């Protein structure tokens, strides 16, 4: 097993399982969770799973356009990194592994 690989949880579905798996993901890897489409609703401050990830050494990002369309910017934590639609591509290639959910 390679140590310290970069892993991207690419979450496009309204299924919290991807976030839950990420919570348990080994600390040895550098984990980023990217929320897209209706998965951006998980970014709501009231979401316990995402709050838990934010307290770990993991990054939570969300697609900025998908947040904006839904009018959610006032309801999400400051710790969530907003990624412009065009920059999602870079995030995909920066990571070694994609876990699609």
């Amino acid at each position, binding site marked *: 097993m390679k140590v310290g690989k970069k892993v991207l949880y690419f979450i496009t579905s309204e299924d919290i399982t991807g976030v839950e798996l990420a919570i348990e993901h080994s600390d040895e890897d550098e984990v980023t969770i990217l929320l897209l489409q209706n998965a951006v609703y998980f970014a709501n401050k009231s979401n316990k799973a995402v709050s838990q990830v934010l307290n770990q050494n993991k990054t939570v990002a969300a697609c900025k356009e998908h947040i904006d369309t839904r*009018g*959610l910017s006032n309801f999400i934590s400051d710790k969530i990194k907003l990624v412009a639609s065009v920059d999602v591509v870079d995030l995909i290639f920066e990571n070694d592994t994609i876990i699609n959910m």
Partner: protein
Amino acid sequence: MTEEKNIVILLRQPPHGTLYPVEGLRMSVAVSADFDPITIAINDGVYAFLKNVDKTMYSMHIDFLKDIDLDIFIDEKSLIERALTKNDLIEQVEVKEHAEILKIIENSTVTIPF
């Protein structure tokens, strides 16, 4: 034709990502010619009425329903679960306690979920 029917259009899905809430509101408008449908938002359906959500696809339906004095009710319990308040929503909707929402659904003849 038959006795008066109470129609409830139930919006339970978020406003983007699927067409359901848009189509639900379009349905409320359509049946308003023959009935007085009540539109209710529960669960993620409440997100459709945030002040800052992009309503390009359905603001005309909201305006139409309000122009003919039809109600759009928001389930308070669903709001609270999402850490949202009345002030986060547009003025055309009315927040109702969960018990009242239940009562309206109970008294409907037909409930159509979107």
